[in-house]
């Protein structure tokens, strides 16, 4: 089999303020014409760098230190700028994560496709426009004539990615590199985009390199999958082999950590049938632009119970988490914590309310939720000081809290930027637990984490709940994760509850079509 693209011993380094950092330590890859290859790895594994290096798109700081990049046998690692311009787009095309940002915001999408076409072919403007329109049609954009004149901000994320695909396909390249093409998109959109991508590459006999952190996604769409870790390829195999008989320890860990429909946590079902803790009734919140963010939502959580809140972006799940945690005021409805109507206290005054210590929150992005000027110690001590702890024992209390959250007390003197994602997540949890709350709102606490870290954090949360008798309101877009941690869940769409019930049964036999669609769209690798 003659390789279309072969990467041999590729070494890349970046000049950073901390000196030269090696990103790739001799990567070897190859892909044949019409083949599909998945590259899977966690952050820092070098999967995107490999792709960018292959197209010589590394930014100024990046440098290819060694190795060869053979395109149809021609080494393009040292090709001229002119050759690269001819190559990019026409022979190898690439699409990216966050499609809206990947499009020029002040140029109509039609013009951008035309630009791509005319960069490689001497077409008249009219001819290019006609081809661009055809390209849009091909990616199944409705009303393509109208969309030609649209600007990226006027399109949804999924549509933008379709435009990107149209642009990439416009010059009929032999290889398409898709770098996390669906990350950040809702699960339903993700499926549609991936299906389209698979279909188009098949139809045009185009080779596809799919770069993703989601093992299941890669396995679902690719014939071969390469697993990378810290700038090295650890294993390349067919999906079935990877899942059933991973050779490398890292692959094994990765497979184990990836949540699937069958993953479980030890304490999930140990539901203590305690008295009712939180009662939310008829909660409604209208945004400044007039849309209903939360529409007449009611639910309860018992002491020690863990309730999952699932929905796509815009479903109102994050808003509910803010409302419950009294960081935002509702327009109507009641929130009761035990006997107290905490919904009646305005959010801006709630910091003085006695219930402040009872409801705490863990944020989605652990890094962003830590004050950059606070050490880990300061972050955990802050709620203790504010919510009236024994000041003389503060050092000890903080250290205890850190240990409970699995954070080594040695790290307490560090600032957020000196800590890893997992460590930051632990600080966030330790901080939330510091005031010994009764209810913990978990707002996608693992969404920004790599799967291996996610698995550990989920385990931690599970254990803490069991140990401390906490109640959780767990908000997530990832059904698999919710199912692992929660016995009961609520599915939200457009601010409304479309389904609720026992997690297992919702999963197995969804009642509403929306839930069914959600479940169906979860990437999974069927053996």
């Amino acid at each position, binding site marked *: 089999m003659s390789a279309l693209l072969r990467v041999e011993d590729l070494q890349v380094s970046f000049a950073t303020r901390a000196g030269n950092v090696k990103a790739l330590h001799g990567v070897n890859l190859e892909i044949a014409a019409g083949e599909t290859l998945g590259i899977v790895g966690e952050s820092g594994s070098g999967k995107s760098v490999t792709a960018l290096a292959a*197209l010589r*798109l590394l930014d100024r700081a990046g440098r290819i230190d060694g190795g060869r990049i053979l395109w149809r046998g021609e080494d393009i690692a040292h090709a001229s700028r002119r050759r690269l311009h001819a190559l*990019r787009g026409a022979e190898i095309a690439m699409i990216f994560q966050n499609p809206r940002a990947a*499009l020029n915001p*002040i140029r109509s999408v039609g013009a951008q496709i035309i*630009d*791509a076409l005319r960069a490689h072919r001497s077409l008249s403007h009219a001819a290019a426009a006609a081809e661009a329109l055809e390209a849009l049609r091909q990616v199944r954009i409705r009303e393509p004539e109208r969309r030609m004149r649209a600007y990226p901000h*006027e399109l949804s994320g999924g549509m933008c990615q379709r435009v990107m695909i149209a642009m990439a396909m416009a010059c009929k390249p032999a290889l398409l590199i898709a770098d996390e093409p669906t990350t950040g998109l809702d699960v339903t959109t993700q499926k549609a985009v991936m299906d389209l991508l698979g279909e188009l590459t098949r139809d045009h006999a185009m080779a596809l390199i799919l770069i993703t952190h989601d093992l299941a996604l890669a396995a679902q769409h690719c014939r071969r999958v390469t697993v990378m870790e810290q700038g090295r390829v650890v294993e390349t195999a067919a999906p079935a082999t990877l899942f059933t008989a991973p050779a490398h320890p890292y692959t094994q860990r990765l497979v184990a950590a990836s949540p699937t429909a069958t993953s479980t946590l030890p304490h999930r079902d140990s539901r203590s049938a305690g008295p009712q803790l939180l009662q939310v009734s008829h909660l409604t919140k209208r945004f400044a632009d007039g849309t209903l963010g939360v529409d007449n939502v009611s639910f309860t959580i018992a002491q020690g119970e863990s309730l999952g809140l699932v929905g796509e972006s815009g479903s109102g799940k994050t808003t509910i988490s803010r409302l419950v945690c009294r960081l935002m005021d509702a327009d109507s409805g009641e929130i009761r914590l035990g006997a107290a109507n905490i919904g009646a206290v305005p959010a801006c005054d709630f910091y003085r309310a006695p219930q402040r210590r009872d409801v705490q929150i863990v944020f989605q992005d652990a890094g962003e939720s830590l004050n950059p000027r606070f050490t880990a110690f300061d972050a955990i001590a802050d709620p203790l000081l504010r919510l009236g702890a024994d000041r003389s024992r503060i050092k000890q209390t903080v250290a205890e809290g850190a240990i409970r959250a699995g954070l080594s007390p040695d790290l307490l003197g560090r600032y957020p930027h000196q800590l890893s994602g997992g460590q930051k997540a632990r600080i966030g949890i330790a901080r939330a637990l510091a005031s010994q709350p009764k209810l913990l709102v978990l707002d996608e606490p693992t969404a920004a984490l790599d799967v291996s870290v996610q698995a550990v954090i989920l385990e931690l949360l599970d254990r803490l709940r069991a140990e401390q008798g906490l109640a959780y309101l767990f908000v997530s877009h990832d059904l698999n994760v919710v199912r692992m941690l929660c016995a009961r869940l609520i599915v939200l769409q457009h601010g409304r509850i479309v389904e609720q019930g026992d997690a297992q049964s919702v999963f197995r036999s969804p009642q509403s079509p929306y839930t069914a669609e959600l479940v169906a769209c979860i990437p999974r690798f069927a053996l």
Partner: protein
Amino acid sequence: MTKSAAVLRLAGRRLAASLPALLGVVVFTFVLMRVLPGDPAVFFASGPSAGQKEIEDIRHQMGLDRSIPVQLAFYLRDIGTGSLGHSMTTGQPVLKDLEERLPASLELTFAALVLALGLAIPMGVLAALNPGSTTDHAVRFLCTLGVCVPTFVSGLLLIYVFYYLAGIAPDPTGRIDIFASQPPSHTGFLVIDSLIAGDFDAARSAASQLVLPAVTMALFVLAPLARMTRASMLAVLGSDFIRTARAMGLSRGRIVFVYALRNAALPVLTIAGIVFSTMLGANVLVEKVFSWPGVAAYALDALLATDYAPVQGFVLLMAVIFVFVNLLVDVLYGLADPRVNAA
């Protein structure tokens, strides 16, 4: 169609919203002028033989014998009827003075801004294309050098070198050679008026008079413009869509000029608007040094003479121009950036 309507609506709203600020400017200036410790009547009656009676007469003539709120009410009424009062220094209605002098200031400021942009944008782009390079540092150093010389010093030095020593520049005494004939006024911009009149000698004279003061002013604003160009170019060049354009194999020229520069120009436009308004009001010293008959020098003289009306008129004029320039920038921004509509 909907776009232009939206832009118009925006313009209308912005104008209406700026009215309180304008009123604030008027009232604040009025009060500030009234607390100036000098008595304008005494100043203007300082002829060799003026006595107490003359002072009283002038005070009455200027309306200073009334209480301040009454004076303010009269002043606001006058503004409403399109009068800004009389200047004691020039003896003319303030409106007429400003009308005659504003084109001079505008012409100079425009020339300086065009010059500054013409230098700053290429320099900023060059620096952004090679960040950290010698070019980058050189651009930064040169631009900063311009900011740290007070304009009156650079102005006097330029005159000394180019007029006095080298004799290349014309005598720094206003907008056009005093012996040349003034073109009939259409735009108020002498260079353009001369060209309209077909008088190329006058146009050359007017243009050559512009060079030194415009350079003096441009030097001072080079740094913010070049910095902004560089920063916004850098930000745009690092953005995802430039990577897309590169991945699609677009030519370097197209990427830099069509994709990057057009996007990077938007913040530069905003800064340019601010720079323009600031320069117009702040070129007092340049106008003084080059005997430029502009509005700022006029206001300065009036201020030192405690001549209230011209200062008030000038400040109001500057505030109005400030509002309009901001509005123009917003409208241009709205036309250039489709996202503004959505917001």
